[in-house]
């Protein structure tokens, strides 16, 4: 049930690895920027940062082909970025600007980029499972050959739609990967108290599909597991449930005193299982990356994010007329 540690997959070139690291850093900086702008009162509503979970988004989506699709969650910035979305337009969406991905109408919880195969974030926990299943059905019926990753959290695995969708995908052998980012908490609910089993991946057995638990702080392990599941899906062998153990370094959403977990626990994760630090170190150890190059990436990303902020802040507000546009096709 629990996946083996894979170190450095053969089919990942050094360039790809560095690219993955870079993506992870973009996500980290993007989330920092979002938090900062939120604190400054520039962003309203709410936000769910994926800081600490960069390896799941990047590793999983890194294993996909361009034509493949994803459905995302309320904690979806990382998925968007890994799927190739423009962070300027993402930030513009958070600022509710016309140039945002949703023309300012969706906000953080609803960013979608259908052209890139991102079928959208979802404000409803486990709301994406049936949709991902349907997108996979299209792939199968139209023989389009694409695979769908359905991202969701540990908490979502207790929703009925999780159960129904996994079963449906299994009996119809649909090319979908149910990817659980188990960050140990659903808002304040410790997953240990919300289920009576050790691994969410064990639930795969209820549907006759493979289930695996992996280290979500190890981007290459995530990549490997997803690659395998994607191959299985693409070759008509149906869905897989992947559970990646990870941790969100920040609170659930904007105001969260994090009373449900200890500062020690947080420190443990942040100092020992930061996926970016770990990956960076391993690339440096491997000789794929130098300290200087790493720093250069950081700097580059920083200015990349600043530029995105500039774009977003200088973008226009949506017009009042747009209120009633796009309700119907």
């Amino acid at each position, binding site marked *: 049930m629990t996946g083996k540690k894979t170190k450095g997959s053969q089919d990942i070139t050094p360039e790809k690895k560095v690219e993955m690291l870079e993506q992870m850093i973009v996500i980290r900086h993007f989330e920092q920027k979002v938090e900062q702008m939120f604190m400054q009162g520039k962003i309203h509503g709410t936000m769910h940062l994926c800081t600490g979970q960069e390896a799941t988004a990047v590793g999983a989506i890194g294993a996909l082909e361009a034509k493949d699709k994803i459905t995302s969650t309320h904690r979806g910035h990382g998925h968007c970025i890994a799927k190739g979305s423009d962070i300027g337009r993402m930030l513009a969406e958070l600022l509710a600007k016309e140039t945002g*991905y949703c*023309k300012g109408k969706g906000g953080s919880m609803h960013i*979608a980029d259908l052209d890139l195969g991102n079928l959208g974030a979802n404000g409803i926990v486990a709301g994406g*499972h*049936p949709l991902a299943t349907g997108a996979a059905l*299209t792939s199968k*019926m139209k023989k389009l050959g694409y695979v769908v990753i359905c991202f969701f959290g540990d908490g979502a695995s207790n929703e009925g739609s999780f159960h*129904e*969708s996994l079963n449906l995908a299994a009996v119809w052998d649909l090319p979908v990967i149910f990817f659980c980012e188990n960050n140990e908490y659903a808002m304040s609910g410790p997953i240990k108290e919300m289920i009576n089993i050790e691994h969410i991946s064990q639930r795969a057995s209820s549907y006759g599909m493979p289930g695996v638990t992996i280290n979500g702080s190890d981007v290459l392990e995530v990549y490997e597991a997803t690659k395998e599941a994607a191959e299985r899906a693409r070759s008509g062998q149906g869905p897989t449930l992947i559970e990646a153990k990870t941790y969100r370094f920040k609170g659930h959403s904007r105001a969260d005193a994090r009373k449900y977990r200890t500062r020690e626990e947080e420190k443990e994760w942040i100092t020992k299982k930061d996926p970016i630090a770990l990956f960076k170190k391993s690339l440096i150890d491997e000789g794929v990356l130098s300290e200087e190059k790493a720093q250069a990436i950081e700097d580059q990303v920083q200015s990349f994010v600043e530029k995105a902020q500039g774009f977003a802040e200088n973008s226009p507000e949506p017009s009042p007329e747009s209120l009633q546009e796009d309700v119907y096709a």
Partner: protein
Amino acid sequence: MREITYAESVREAMSQVMRADEDVFILGEDIGIYGGAFGVTNGMLDEFGPERVRTTPISEAAITGCAIGAAMTGMRPILELQFSDFITIATDQIVNQAAKLRYMYGGKASVPVVIRTPAGSGAGLAAQHSQSLEAWMAHIPGLKVIQPSTPSDAKGLLKAAIEDNNPVMFYEHKLLYGMKGDVAEDSYTIPIGVADVKKEGTDLTVVATSIMVHKTLEAAEELGKENIHIEVIDPRTLVPLDEETIIKSVLKTRRALVVTEAVKRGGYGAEIASMIGESEAFDFLDAPVSRLGGVDTPMPYNPTLEKMAVPQVGDIVQKVREMLNRA
């Protein structure tokens, strides 16, 4: 033209579109070899095969969302929900997903899905299988809502629904499935959003939906004997609602009665009545815009009580008389 039943007409609409468009398929519980709980898909499995007539597990949330996800990505699914009462299990997918995706995504997705589902009482199936909850869906921006009352309307409107690029709720009535009527053999559409004047009249306008159209037409016959001539309007689609046709009629008759099977309180009859009351017809009204609808109870099993729970021909006749005898 030939006479076929409402159920046959629904089937014919689906079959004709499926022959012409590969992207259209049906899914639902027991729709394959069983032909659906009401036999609507009878024989379709044989013609189209199990890939396009997909029998599903009993998982209303997943199958509805699956249809929506397929619609977002290029298919044009028709979902049969076995009873409209079961929408309650798929509500999130219909209301929070299908209806809103396009708007939330800034106009980027379209969700061409049709959800067909039988509603209404009269079959002795009691409280959990007899509801008329179309008002719920008509309250939700992003959905279209259709409620055909005749075989011919059902066929043309279903085709229009399938061709529409938006999520469409298509409420059939279980007591109408066996009803026969003239239906053209060719594939045709009836535009969504156009009411039909089922009977012209001068003395009072009755706006009636679904099976109440027939009860009202019966009432009209009885009233005709008393030389009372009511106009009977079937909106056919609740969203968008053809307000113009209704208002024009009321401007002529100066009296309006709205008849639905759905529970009166909070039903869509309230929307239609309020709309009339707010319109330019207000100044010409000779009587309050009135409503007849279901009583405030879950649907009882006992057939006598079940009939009492929703408007009957006699109720309509009496109400019309009352409204005409007013001042």
